């Protein structure tokens, strides 16, 4: 008996252990977050609490607010005060140098300034603009800060510009004033404001409301100046002489930081440790709005002069300025997502995102972070409500990857009614026994294994230990219920399908691909902890018939199986077709050696296409796995087979109602095929090497619907184009991808997702199906109101993607984001994001051209732009002369971007533009994320000749206009698809020598597509710039070297998007006039 006792107790212990470990999810969850927490602690050293959400106030607000809490962090500097490009603006140094350079102006300079600025502006307005009464802001300002109008201020308000220019203040206002000075606008207060605050010490700034006015406006002087020319030519028939003088008042363009603060509205639960005093200032920011201070003291007579002058481009809102400002104010900082509805930094701004309850902007960006509370309001503003979701976006290594949550056999916990997944929006009640769904308000029981007590504020005590309670983005392990046929999925497979028709053999492409694959397949994506990639590979070559290859590892030689029944194609083998590369390495390399030889003397020039996709799909189906097809194709598939295409390119259709047919597939077969592919998790990546029309609208359709990527290399030449192609291929193969995915967007009550754009397939109205989705693919989701939205609860969005990982695990990736709601239109306007808007407009327009004439689509875009701005003018802006163009701050650059969209070759029907090119661009844009659309529509133009080769910093971009080029300059331009190096005729020889290793301009060969690797600072720096602009981009860019005044310059000029384009697109200035006219008409 005695001896038994210990055993018994031991057994008891054991059973405890068992019961403990049996609830695996809990245990797991318990452990993992702890580890992570530790990491985070390391990163955010000054966090006061171990919980990662509990960011200490200072550290948090510091990055988030762009340095307003000056006591703790390095101050940010004036650069976030707008300066609209131009030579003077060069001052705004690259980020790294920025901090130092701004110090002389007083670190606190920006901090304190805004409120006085506002005040100042009001003052100014009162002084100068009879039409701008001071009370205009009362709505927004609420309790006006009124506090610190520095006594030193008034003098500045009347000061003329020269002093400011001399101060080298980068403030745009100063420059603006400069410009405007010529227009005899003398009372320009705002420009002074920044400098006025420079002297004011840090404490003052701290005291002052940290928010600069968020909505600078531009005003165009009274309507008299509007030319009588017939209105609204979208393509910019506006003639420069008729331009109204554009006046601009933009006190403090840097809108980022204010918004960050603004989010912390008193109505919301304050973030931990939030400074109470900020609360007061928040609201007033929203309303701060500055109309151009009349500037008309001189009266009409004085205006006559400027009227005839060409509008100075520097005086109109500059995208570069906006980008640089945002960089300056928010770049390099930590952006925490703990506040509902806060507007994230721009896509062009580098910062560290810390997930604190809302999805990172890398995953979700919205057109506005504050939804109108009612549908009437929404209709009034006509601001599209949309989110651009990039569910698989790459996060930089210094941000935390997504946690994986396992809720055990029962699968993820979901709301019983709306099926939303457990997320931070769920409210735990009744001591933690129940939770209320944030989306549908249904009260659900908490499953026993998930139960946890609540603390004194009603929060679960394990709040910070569970990603699904505290993070915006995380993953669930999916159970068998979430799998196809309730069977665990197999790892996906990649099938390489190479067109071996005459042209591809002759061009050497086949050999190039085969050689590359030999090494490339070692780099197939794998899970971090795995040795080898679980992805299996298969090979097919084809011309008029298909050749499958058996590369089973035990074969001495690969075996070729010809399927000539292209009418009803099928997979001739299962075992041995899809193999593990490592195991079959020798057979595969044998095969890849032989393929070019095998077809060396082919004379088959006809190809099939649809059967190739079909075969790949069938192969994946037979292998019961999802996967990607890599198709290397070069010609129009004219061979007799399903999906046969004929050359239907008809330039006569351009600009007619039938133009849309050019974007539609030629035969229905492809749509059916796409549907089947999606149903079987077959993603089609298409590499096209056309020498002539290949009907991309038809051929690319399957690629688009299946979430694949389309690459196109016109007139492919092995020697010049292979680096670009190989880089694309490498990137694509190594890309992280989710397979066989289905996305569902759930929203809180009152609104819902109504439309989806992207490389997706929709079988019904709610399920977004994607055969695969990779890190570069974004889905744009449009929302519409169902009902009134509750301003307290906000608008919540949960985007759940069910997918298969590369190792064949089924996962659910959840992104949650909460947006604000407001019944004030101004709130909505203030929270808009232009880049996201353009992404949405582009996608919806490009979708619409399938059904509507291009002209209509363009008009709709134009109308909507005007409408949005007019609505703002009408409802939010201070009353001013109707002829003033007033732009909300957040949409300051909307016109220029919109103009770029309208000028894009897709929307401009000109017979000179190849139909394929238009279809190609259309397709690319459809699945692009915000960062890429931004770059695509407004290319990056960097001056190279005067860059500082000693520093690592990048040169500051200049605006895409010919005026910014100079004969003595060298400029680099990239838009994500194309890359140019423009050389002025009198470019500095030392730069030329440095880059090209040739003595002079005349010696430079424009044939090269790569720069020589030279060991000198110019070459190194330029190449590092090129490398950087290439990184993280979905497409590799081929470098085109353009010499000034040579023929290829025409091509380059198309990318100078602020200029009038050769295809008839309006210049920025012209467009602005058009928009203005439209607005005026609307207002009247």
């Amino acid at each position: 008996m005695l001896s038994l006792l210990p055993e018994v107790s031991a057994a008891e212990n054991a059973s405890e252990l068992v019961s403990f470990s049996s609830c695996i999810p809990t245990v797991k969850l318990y452990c993992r977050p702890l580890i992570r927490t530790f990491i985070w602690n390391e990163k955010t050293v000054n966090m006061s609490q171990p919980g990662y959400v509990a960011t200490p106030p200072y550290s948090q607000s510091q990055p988030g607010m762009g340095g307003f809490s000056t006591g703790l962090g390095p101050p940010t500097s004036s650069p976030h005060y707008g300066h609209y490009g131009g030579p003077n603006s060069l001052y705004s140094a690259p980020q790294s140098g920025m901090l130092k350079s701004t110090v002389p102006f007083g670190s606190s300079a920006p901090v304190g300034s805004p409120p006085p600025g506002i005040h100042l502006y009001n003052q100014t307005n009162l002084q100068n603009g009879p039409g701008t009464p001071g009370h205009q802001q009362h709505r927004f300002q609420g309790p006006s800060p009124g506090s610190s109008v520095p006594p030193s201020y008034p003098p500045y308000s009347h000061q003329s510009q020269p002093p400011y220019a001399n101060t080298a203040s980068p403030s745009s206002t100063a420059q603006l004033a400069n410009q405007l000075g010529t227009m005899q606008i003398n009372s320009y207060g705002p420009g002074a404001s920044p400098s006025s605050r420079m002297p004011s010490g840090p404490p003052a700034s701290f005291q002052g409301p940290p928010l600069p006015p968020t909505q600078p406006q531009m005003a165009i002087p009274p309507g008299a100046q509007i030319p009588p020319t017939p209105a609204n030519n979208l393509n910019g028939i506006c003639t420069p002489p008729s331009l109204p003088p554009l006046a601009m008042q933009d006190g403090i363009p840097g809108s980022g930081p204010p918004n960050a603060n603004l989010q912390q509205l008193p109505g919301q639960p304050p973030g931990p440790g939030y400074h109470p005093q900020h609360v007061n200032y928040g609201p007033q920011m929203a309303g701060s709005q500055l109309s151009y201070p009349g500037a008309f003291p001189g009266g009409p007579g004085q205006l006559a002069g400027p009227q005839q002058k060409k509008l100075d481009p520097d005086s109109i809102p500059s995208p570069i300025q906006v980008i640089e400002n945002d960089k300056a104010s928010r770049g390099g900082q930590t952006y925490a997502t703990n506040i509902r509805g806060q507007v994230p930094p721009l896509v062009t701004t580098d910062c560290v995102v810390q997930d604190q309850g809302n999805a990172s902007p890398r995953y979700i960006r919205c057109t506005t972070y504050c939804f109108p509370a009612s549908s009437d309001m929404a209709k009034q503003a006509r601001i599209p409500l949309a989110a651009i979701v990039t569910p698989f976006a790459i996060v930089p290594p210094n941000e935390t990857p997504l946690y994986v949550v396992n809720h055990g056999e029962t699968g993820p916990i979901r709301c019983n009614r709306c099926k939303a997944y457990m997320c931070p929006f769920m409210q735990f009640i009744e001591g933690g026994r129940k939770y209320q769904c944030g989306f549908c308000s249904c009260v659900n029981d908490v499953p026993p294994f998930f139960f946890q007590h609540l603390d004194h504020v009603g929060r679960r005590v394990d709040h910070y230990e569970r990603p699904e309670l505290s993070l915006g983005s995380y993953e669930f392990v999916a159970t068998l219920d979430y799998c196809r046929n309730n069977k665990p999925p197999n790892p996906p497979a990649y099938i390489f399908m190479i067109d071996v028709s005459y042209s591809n053999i002759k061009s050497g492409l086949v050999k190039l691909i085969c050689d590359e694959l030999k090494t490339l397949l070692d780099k197939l994506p794998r899970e971090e902890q795995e040795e080898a990639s679980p992805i299996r590979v298969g090979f097919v070559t084809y011309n008029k018939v298909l050749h499958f290859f058996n590369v089973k590892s035990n074969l001495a030689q690969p075996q070729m199986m010809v399927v000539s029944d292209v009418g009803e194609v099928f997979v001739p083998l299962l075992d041995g077709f899809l193999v593990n590369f490592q195991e079959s390495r020798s057979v595969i390399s044998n095969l890849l050696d032989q393929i070019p030889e095998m077809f060396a003397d082919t004379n088959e020039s006809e190809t099939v296409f649809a059967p190739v996709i079909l075969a790949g799909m069938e192969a994946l189906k037979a292998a019961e796995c999802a996967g990607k097809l890599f198709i290397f194709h070069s010609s129009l598939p004219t061979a007799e087979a399903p999906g046969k295409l004929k050359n239907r390119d008809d330039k006569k259709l351009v600009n007619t109602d039938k133009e849309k047919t050019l974007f539609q597939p030629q035969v229905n077969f492809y749509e059916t095929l796409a549907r089947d592919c999606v149903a079987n998790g077959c993603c089609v990546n298409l590499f096209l090497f056309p020498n002539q029309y290949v009907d991309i609208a038809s051929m690319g359709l399957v690629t688009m619907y299946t979430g694949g990527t389309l690459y196109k290399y016109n007139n492919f030449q092995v020697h010049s184009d292979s680096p670009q192609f190989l880089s694309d291929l490498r990137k694509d193969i190594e890309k992280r991808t989710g397979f066989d995915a289905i996305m569902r967007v759930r929203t809180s009550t009152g609104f819902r997702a109504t439309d989806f754009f992207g490389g997706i397939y929709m079988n019904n109205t709610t399920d977004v199906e994607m055969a695969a989705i990779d890190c570069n693919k974004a889905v744009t989701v449009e929302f519409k109101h169902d009902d009134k939205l509750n301003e307290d609860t906000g608008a919540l969005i949960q985007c759940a993607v069910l997918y298969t990982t590369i190792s064949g695990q089924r996962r659910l990736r959840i992104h949650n984001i909460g947006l604000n709601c407001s019944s004030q239109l101004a709130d909505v306007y203030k929270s808009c994001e232009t880049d996201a808007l353009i992404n949405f407009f582009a996608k919806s327009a490009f979708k619409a051209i399938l059904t509507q004439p291009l002209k209509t689509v363009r008009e709709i875009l134009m109308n909507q732009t005007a409408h949005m701005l007019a609505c703002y003018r009408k409802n939010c802006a201070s009353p001013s002369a109707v002829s003033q163009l007033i732009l909300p701050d957040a949409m300051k650059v909307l016109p220029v971007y919109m103009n770029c969209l309208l000028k894009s070759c897709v929307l401009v029907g000109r017979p000179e533009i190849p139909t394929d090119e238009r279809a190609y661009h259309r397709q690319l844009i459809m699945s692009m994320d915000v960062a890429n659309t931004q770059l695509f529509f407004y290319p990056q133009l960097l001056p190279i000749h005067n860059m500082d080769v000693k520093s690592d910093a990048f040169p500051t971009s200049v605006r895409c206009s010919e005026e910014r080029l100079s004969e003595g300059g060298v400029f680099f331009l990239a838009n994500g698809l194309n890359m140019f190096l423009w050389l002025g005729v009198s470019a500095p020889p030392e730069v030329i020598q440095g880059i090209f290793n040739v003595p002079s301009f005349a010696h430079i060969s424009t044939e090269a597509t790569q720069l020589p690797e030279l060991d000198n600072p110019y070459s190194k720096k330029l190449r590092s710039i090129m490398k950087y602009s290439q990184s993280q981009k979905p497409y590799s860019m081929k470098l085109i070297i353009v010499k000034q005044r040579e023929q290829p310059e025409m091509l380059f000029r198309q990318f100078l998007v602020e200029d009038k384009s050769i295809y008839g697109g309006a210049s920025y200035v012209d467009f602005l006039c058009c928009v203005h006219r439209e607005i005026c008409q609307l207002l009247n």
Partner: protein
Amino acid sequence: MATYLEFIQQNEERDGVRFSWNVWPSSRLEATRMVVPLACLLTPLKERPDLPPVQYEPVLCSRPTCKAVLNPLCQVDYRAKLWACNFCFQRNQFPPAYAGISEVNQPAELMPQFSTIDYIVQRGPQTPLIFLYVVDTCLEEEDLQALKESLQMSLSLLPPDALVGLITFGRMVQVHELSCEGISKSYVFRGTKDLTAKQIQDMLGLTKPAVPVQQGRPLQPQEQPVISSRFLQPIHKIDMNLTDLLGELQRDPWPVTQGKRPLRSTGVALSIAVGLLEGTFPNTGARIMLFTGGPPTQGPGMVVGDELKTPIRSWHDIEKDNARFMKKATKHYETLANRTAANGHCIDIYACALDQTGLLEMKCCTNLTGGHMVMGDSFNTSLFKQTFQRVFSKDFNGEFRMAFGASLDVKTSRELKIGGAIGPCISLNAKGPYVSENELGIGGTCQWKICSLDPNTTLAIYFEVVNQHNAPIPQGGRGAVQFITQYQHSSMQKRIRVTTIARNWADAQNQLQHIEAAFDQEAAAVLMARLGVYRAETEEGPDVLRWLDRQLIRLCQKFGQYNKDDPNSFRLSDSFSLYPQFMFHLRRSPFLQVFNNSPDESSYYRHHFARQDLTQSLIMIQPILYSYSFYGPPEPVLLDSSSILADRILLMDSFFQIVIYLGETIAQWRKAGYQDMPEYENFKHLLQAPLDDAQEILQTRFPMPRYINTEHGSSQARFLLSKVNPSQTHNNLYAWGQESGSPILTDDVSLQVFMDHLKKLAVSSAA
């Protein structure tokens, strides 16, 4: 005088012909009363080591409707250099080459001993033989290995310039390209889709590129082989390649789930094989050799679904009209067989599986094209291996015992017409003056195509006497029949074998005894059996039996000697005496009885019965039983249960089986090991003797028979017991009361009972 027996034997040896009647009734009416039709068994390529072929063209009768070949029966005017056709009486000039002929300088074809003569003619290009292997890969590993080895072995047996091709099939059908270096290449077809010959040729890239005709220059005839060369290659070129390829053949890689049959696309595979040859080598000697290890389970020609729970059709299902796929499949294979035959190719089927493989549906492929049908349990048995090896056996000249693309032309004297033929042939639909309207077998023609034949291939040809009763044939008149067989010899030569025979006419009314004496009951039995089996293919079994019975009774009535209604008085002459016994065994044979046989087995047996020569056919009808004992030398004994004695060893040869049966005592002795004791060496010899004899049979027969070595009381003894006449059964065991024999547990009637009934019916006046 030489007996008729000797005459018959002589004739058979010289001409390969055996007639049911060797004296022919001279009028249609009399002939029909003879019951057994005037018919013959013709072995067109009977081996004649003593017959050297002549190297010139035969001389033909110039009458366009006749074109009979000059033969020893023709009247020749040596001076005028004229000859008269003995069929149409046309007088023909000898060709110039014959200028020197005279009574003493006769060409071979005029000499009586050359009633059968082979001509070698030089016509057209010589095309090599073609062997297209069509291999099922849905086999067990062991089977596939054995098959691969057999196939590799067979490559060494082929003539070096023969073209070979390889098609493998399972769920898909692969046509292997043999020409390519390095990587092995094959064209794959879906196993479920029936393709037309045109489609197949398109997909294989066999369609001739449209060669622009250059200013009236004729196209190069050489082009054809070039096109096809990818799939059919001379064996000497790709011997190694093909050996490797066969060695690397894998089992069909598609997974077969539990409870399913593998998906086997035999129908499409055959269709592609046929289409391939059709497009490339029409009218050239070619063998499609199908090796299959199970029933076709998908696509056109499927015989059974892939669900294992639904068994393959049995005779029971067929009678109940329950065989879902049979009709469609049969139609598919018939279409294929007809196309193949039209192209002069042949299809062999080597089916090795424990279950049925669909031979019933596929039988026409072999039957219409003269191909072989081999059925075994596994490719890993000596039965298959030996049989397959024997396909490539060579004759005394070292040439293959196979000929291709033969056409058989039959000419008859005016008094005769041709009713039809039964054998591995198809009609060429040559209407001529000799064609009867009454068809027996494949009729309505005087020409048949035999796509493949070997020296044993024997056709039954049925004639009709059309001479009217009122137009008597003058005394001493002879009827003549000429068989002209043109074929491609295995040495690629074109040859023509001409056999001309003549028989006397006799008036059945006053010379019945002549006719009776010239009755060849063996030939008659086989000829009647062929008719019966031919009918059994299309008619219900019992009907055929009834028909056979009625014929037998009528024959007995006609030729028996009896008093009316007195069975005991019934007697048959010697020349008829065995005939009823043959019929008795025929009735019990698997050719007509489907009980205990699967439809495949029946098809298999019938296939062989319809092509073997007389001796072999007789063995099939009535197996031979030899007895070995200490009492004397081995002797044939009655195929009767009374022959099964304890102290005997029996050797039974039923063509398909060789059974060695040890009597009870012998078996006990052997068990006791006496054979190993030196003092009982004689016992050892006794045991050895039947084994040696069996080996001798096994060595020569095609297909190799199933070899069964059994003993009293063993289960395998059933093969013997089922064949012997059940003279002693559990019903009459005691009635016989003798110590001899062993009883058979059966309700089948014994020969005795059968004969009693026959007598009764024959003498009955009511009948």
